[in-house]
């Protein structure tokens, strides 16, 4: 029989014994839940950081669902990503208040400073830019979320400071 399953790339989380163990734990814990696919994928996304093609195949096998439906779910929801992200994420809130409050200018500034578009990661793998939906901190518009921290009332000329804080934390 033809083997259609893709081989696992060497840099895949499944090829890393520690991460494989984590993936197995998540699957084992949730596999009997009704509607387990979403629960498992949510946990994989937050613990591993992304859901590779090989992982989708693996999840489908373990949960006894077609890989097409796992991939369907992964590609449907914006929280799931299939490639690794930067060490830090800067999310630009595109809620109404932030948009009206000058978010487009702020994104322009970020693009010119980092040389990448929202949705992309800087070549050094440090920072991923993202545009996100309202984070519910509208009174401080415009707002960016740096990793898990909210930075509000951010003017374009203050953006370099945000980048500096990220770099400082790194050291």
């Amino acid at each position, binding site marked *: 029989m033809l083997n259609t399953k893709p081989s696992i790339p060497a840099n895949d989380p499944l090829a890393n014994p520690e991460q494989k163990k984590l993936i197995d734990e998540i699957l084992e814990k949730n596999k009997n839940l009704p509607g387990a696919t979403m629960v498992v994928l949510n946990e994989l996304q937050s613990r591993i950081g992304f859901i590779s093609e090989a992982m989708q195949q693996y999840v489908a096998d373990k949960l006894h669902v077609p890989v097409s439906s796992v991939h369907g779910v992964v590609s449907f929801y914006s929280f799931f990503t299939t490639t690794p992200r930067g060490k830090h994420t800067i999310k630009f809130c595109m809620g*109404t208040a932030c948009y009206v409050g000058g978010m487009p200018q702020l994104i322009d500034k970020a693009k010119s400073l980092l040389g990448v578009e929202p949705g992309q990661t800087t070549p050094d793998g440090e920072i991923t830019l993202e545009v996100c939906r309202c984070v519910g901190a*509208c009174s*401080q518009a415009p707002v960016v979320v740096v990793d898990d921290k*909210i930075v509000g009332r951010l003017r*374009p000329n203050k953006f370099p400071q945000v980048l500096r804080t990220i770099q400082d934390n790194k050291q």
Partner: protein
Amino acid sequence: MKYYRSHVLVCVDPECLQKGAHELVDALQDELVATGLIDEVQVLETSRIGGCSLGPEMMVYPEGVHYVGVTPDDVPYLVEEHFLKGRVVNKFQMPTTKIVDEELGAPTQKEVRIVLRNCGKIDPENIEDYIAEDGYQALAKVLTEMTPEEVIDTVLKSGLRGRGGAGFPTGKKWQFTRQAPGEIKYVVCNADEGDPGAFMNRRVLEGDPHSVIEGMIIAAYAIGAHQGYIYCRAEYPVAVSTLNIAIQQARNLGLLGKDILGSGFDFDLEVRMGAGAFVCGEETALIASIEGRRGEPRPRPPFPAVQGLWNKPTNVNNVETYANIPQIILKGPEWYASYGTEKSKGTKTFALAGDLNHTGLIEVPLGISLREIIYDVGGGIKDGKAFKAVQIGGPMGGCVPAEYLDLPLDYESLAQAGTIMGSGGMIVLDEDTCMVDVARYFMDFTQDESCGKCTPCRVGTRRILEILTRICDGKGQDGDIELLENLCQEIRTNSLCGLGQGAPNPVVSTLRYFRDEYEAHIYEKRCPAKVCRALIRYEILPDACTGCTVCARNCPVNAISGERRQTHVIDPDTCIRCGICMQVCNFNAVVIE
């Protein structure tokens, strides 16, 4: 339970966290230990109190003193004055005129708090705090004194309507689900609050999770369900963890699980997380998502009340709807129905945002006018500018102009004005807002969030976005307005779910009230509000420019030239009209022509 003479509640919502709420908590703890008061004064973290714009903020009970703007350096003084000497420190007290949504500290007269009554007042991670505020009494009453029919009857009499937006009578929904044939039934709480600018549900979940849980148990008893799900969006990790703690505490006390309060009624709850899909706020899409599938809606009927989660009868209500239930049971349907208008009873929470002096969370009786909300509760428009419109109901809602300011806020009048109640987002726009740009913004949102299942929504929203973008870019053509109207009509009638049916609303309402702005864009190539980049030009006033070079240094495309201390000039061909120069100029020398 340990007895403290005083409780300090520090707000840890995102805005206060940014302003150093955690540092404040640490400083308070340290100082209380140092002064030996740690056994008498308890420091707790809570959700929003209502003065975040002046944060970090804290409430001190039992006095009910609301302090704002306290830095760790102020803590020794504050602790000495307030807790040792027993004197209120006036300089940190919340100025009463600034208060937007605090019940205890002189709320605006127009507000009534039912859903938000405990927010900021209790420790959301401690079930005893909720019980002390009459929590779970309604559940006890329901389980011991009332039949399911009586519960449904009470909810029907209260006139409560679905707070998720559509406004379907809650009691009727429960009745349908109860009457639907089948042994297994479910209750689901829709906590997928996706509208941009709306955060009412998050505050309730983070500040008073047990009110939602109690409401769900009562609903489950009324319809005969034994399992419930709370579907919370992944953007709210704090709400998810607060809920999980609350559920565990309720289980430990026997308020969830087998044989609740010895009544023989079983019910348990589970939190399920979304993953960033706006359409999952639609009930059939939400159900698909809980089932672990793509969150795509399906045609109704059959309604979830008949065929919902795993094809079993399912009652889906919004967070705010459930949070109302315990109070309705305890205080009676007549009490609840005494608020509001003939057809829209009770109160509604709104998230006020936009160009207002006081933004934040409010709860007002239905029937209040928009003018009262914007000017009395919200303190009027920022910087003395003129009111232009208020966008109600999120991306499926519409913009309401000044002539409707005296409109009583209820489901029917809002529909008449071309918008919807929605979940409660209310964004106030001032005169500097371009309505075509606003319509384009919302269409960009819906177009992106359209799940793609049905063609009118998938293709139609994209076509509308293209036309609106064209108009904003100064390339609008004769006939575009008519084309938009036509498209909107088609999408509204032919889309599968509420997202598609409501998607044209921002365009339809702005066309209805601000048609002249569309015409100015298309025929005069002019943006009256000076927002659309392709139709404006930035210039530097020679008289006001001091030659400080700050604009030139901040310009992302180096379009500004000029020597230090000399008037600067913007090259219109290089300029991308990002507006950064205008924002950074300290002398208001940059203007839009």
